[in-house]
């Protein structure tokens, strides 16, 4: 188990490295730089050059990358161009908000999606067709639009939840839950649709497998065939879907946090993009990549517990 964790993490290192290098390259080849933004349009060429030197932007590309990387490895992600705040500190403050949207959204939509997918695969008929249709519609509705509709319905028309703003968990647990209800729900809708469809497809192929016939031939009850054996055998595609959904939900925070005015990483990324705050944006990309690696590790370990074929390889 320990070995597996280490090996997976070792595999993740090149990924993180590649992601940061690509982002860095992208920024390096771009016209204009942070100094230009910071100096403002009225700055003299001398002031601009001075600022460039200060920010280390006059160094060759690889040196700049190395400076950033060696800093990042020690937990130093630089300072924001816009407000001079320490990037790592700002990100850490906001991480909790993002996780408290993404984790409930992924957990709820996975559980609901798996349940609906199982039922529809098992019962078939109109229910199966309904799940198929709902999956199409659910995937087609843009998250930001769902969020706006939910605001219209449950914050404007019937004021059940706040339309905007975040309440800290320590401030008021009930207020915290209410402030997260609509953001989480707007992510759950698309997620349930996708997970239900994936589960249904995986379950249908599992139910058609020879070992399922053998279970039935041995008098295993239909309920146990579906929810014990087939579900267990369908774990791989379902967990893969959960992983992809997590990646999607992380991306979705960009929109949802902006719409609901939540102080998380996604909202920060949007404002950083709008203000060309490259160090902050770099930091968010890195954090997201690390989160994805960690979640994939957890899913991988879960899967290994379920499927011995992988575990023993």
């Amino acid at each position: 188990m320990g070995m597996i964790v280490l090996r997976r993490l070792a595999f993740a290192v090149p990924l993180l490295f590649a992601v940061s290098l690509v982002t860095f390259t992208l920024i390096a080849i771009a016209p204009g730089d942070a100094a230009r933004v910071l100096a403002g349009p009225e700055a003299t060429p001398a002031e601009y050059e001075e600022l460039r030197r200060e920010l280390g932007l006059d160094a060759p590309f690889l040196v700049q990358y190395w400076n950033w990387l060696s800093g990042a490895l020690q937990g130093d992600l630089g300072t924001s161009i816009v407000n001079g705040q320490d990037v790592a500190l700002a990100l850490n403050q906001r991480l909790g908000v993002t996780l408290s949207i993404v984790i409930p959204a992924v957990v709820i939509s996975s559980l609901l999606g798996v349940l609906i997918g199982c039922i529809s695969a098992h019962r078939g008929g109109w229910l199966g067709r309904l799940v198929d249709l709902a999956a199409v519609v659910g995937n087609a509705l843009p998250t930001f639009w769902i969020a706006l509709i939910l605001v219209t319905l449950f914050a404007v028309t019937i004021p059940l939840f706040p339309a905007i703003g975040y309440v800290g968990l320590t401030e008021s647990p009930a207020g915290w839950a209410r402030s997260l209800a609509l953001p989480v729900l707007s992510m759950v809708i698309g997620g349930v649709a996708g997970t239900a469809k994936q589960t249904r497809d995986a379950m249908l192929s599992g139910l058609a497998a020879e070992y399922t016939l053998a279970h039935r031939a041995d008098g295993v009850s239909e309920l146990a065939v579906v929810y014990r054996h087939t579900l267990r055998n369908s774990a791989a595609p379902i967990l893969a879907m959960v992983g992809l959904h997590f990646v999607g939900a992380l991306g979705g925070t960009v929109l949802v946090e902006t719409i609901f005015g939540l102080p998380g990483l996604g909202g920060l990324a949007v404002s950083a993009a709008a203000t060309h705050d490259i160090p902050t944006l770099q930091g968010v990309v890195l954090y997201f990549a690390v989160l994805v690696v960690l979640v994939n590790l957890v899913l991988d370990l879960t899967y290994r517990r379920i499927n011995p074929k992988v575990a023993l390889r």
Partner: protein
Amino acid sequence: MRAPTPTEASAPVTPVPAAGEAPPAAPARRPGLLRRFLRKPGAVVAAAFLLLLTLACVAAPVVAPYGESEAILADASSGPSAAHWLGTDNLGYDVFSRLLYGGANTLGPAALSVLIAGVVGVPVGMAAGFRAGRLDRIVGWVLDGVMSIPSTIFLLAVLAVFPHNMTVAMAFFGLLISPPVARVVRSVVLGVRAEQYIDVARVSGIGDAGIIWRHVRSKLAGVVVVQLTLVAGISIVAQSGLEFLGLGPQPPAPTWGNLVSTAAESIHRQPWLLVPTGGVIALVVIALWFVGDGLRDALAERWQGPPTTRGRRAPAPAETAARSRSLPADAGVLVLDGLTVSFGDGADRHPVVQDVALSVAAGETVALLGESGCGKSVTARAAAGLLPSTAHVDAGTVVLDGTTYDLTGRGPDLPRGAGIAMIFQEPVAALDPTLTVGALLTGSVRRHTGVDRKAARERALELVRQVGIRDPESVLRRYPHELSGGMAQRVCIARALAGRPKVLVADEPTTALDVTVQQGVLDLLRERQAETGLGILFVTHDWGVVADIATRCVVMYAGQVVEVAGVDDLFAGPRHPYSRGLMAANPAAARPGERLTALPGRVPAPAEWPRGCRFQARCPFATEECGRGPIPLTTCADGRQVRCIRWEEVAGAGS
């Protein structure tokens, strides 16, 4: 895979294409892809909608009722009306016109993303599929990496660098979304490799790349198009999200995303605006999905052939009257009677098994013989109540150890596992990959006997020993993939015996095994039978196995029983021309130097069953009379049964 699906039960045996032959092209009369696509109303409506919308967006300056930045303040914030079909926003812009103008801004970059996803994904997938091996692993790893990047956040970085440049952003998005395209292409290539390499290239010795390419080409185009419709949907949603955040072209330039964000600003005063602005995005994505789905179905029909629409008459009363006499209920531990099973719906519903009766006595092994498509697997599965849900049991009862069960109900409550057990052709596939042998067997024992865990484990050990496995303790700890085929079949037999059944249905249990292992499994079955008095219904097409294990034979052809005889009698003199032909075609019986007789022709598909004798087209003894009407199953003076009006001549003719 022996699941009796309708395709298997009814599909004619396709001859393997000869080496070097062109890929199996669709028969000339079959309608083209476009025609088949046009038959799907949902997909056609969706395609028409997309086409109209795209044209209207491109021609917006001509088509739109108002100009791109023509704001009529007097009409601001109005609902839908004759003048403004979808209403106006707070600045007095006509929403309908703005959506058309915005369409070009949004659809253009999204189309670029689709193009790039295709241009990158297809070659990468092909390379991985064709070269396989290490390249495939590296590509797979890179694709995994790319898919685990949250693309939205990455696009933010791109847009920070190229402000408001949607074209660049969506070009990057095309790259990020190419992995699923590459995956699909790779799996098509690998699939074709697996089929064609074995079937054709290896036989002919022709280099595989050329042949695979020819087969890949015919499948790839459609699969890629389907995948790209999905990519298009995802691209539009992602792009409009970025536009919504204000990272796309700046207002007043319209895009679908910033039209939604304008709507969001007046969410309190005019919530209606959200409906058309977000709705158009959702509609386009849904329409793309329907087009993709319709294309996929149209493509699938090319490979499977369209369902035959030729109706088939219901069994004539005469045919029903010609039923075989039902056997007495005490004739055996398993008595199947009057079994008729059909597949399909409406006009496409065809019987695949008709009025089949057979019985198995305690301690007896009855072989159920016939070519593929004769209905023997369907018969065997129906006896255990294990037909797929697509099968309709129109009539039939089964008597198990004295109790009669009606098979027509939905999932008859047969004592599966305890009264009647089953073993299968692919033993490893029949074992649940997530369960150890021990978990599987103790589960079976507890289900059938209700003993506690410890006693169940004892019994599991005993069962494993009984099926001749040495080192039972260690085998109980193993997973199916750690077992050889022969060992897996022994485990399956142990499981089948766990409930102390009276009857065992064995569906070609030795076909997939090595010859050396086959004998061991047959010996084991014989031994367990001698000890427990088990009745065995043994489905097979192997005469060697029949001679080895069977006491009686039931020969089936085109859904009917055509001959029933003791095994020695049958070998000594078959009375149905089909049994005779089948026996002559047995390669094991061929003598050296003698030409192997093949049985000419093929089993007719259920939709093609002739009115009279179903074997007449392939029968050397056929006369005009054979085509006149259904042939009854005749019981001869010696108790043998045969469905042939000229059986005496067949029996008389030397071999």
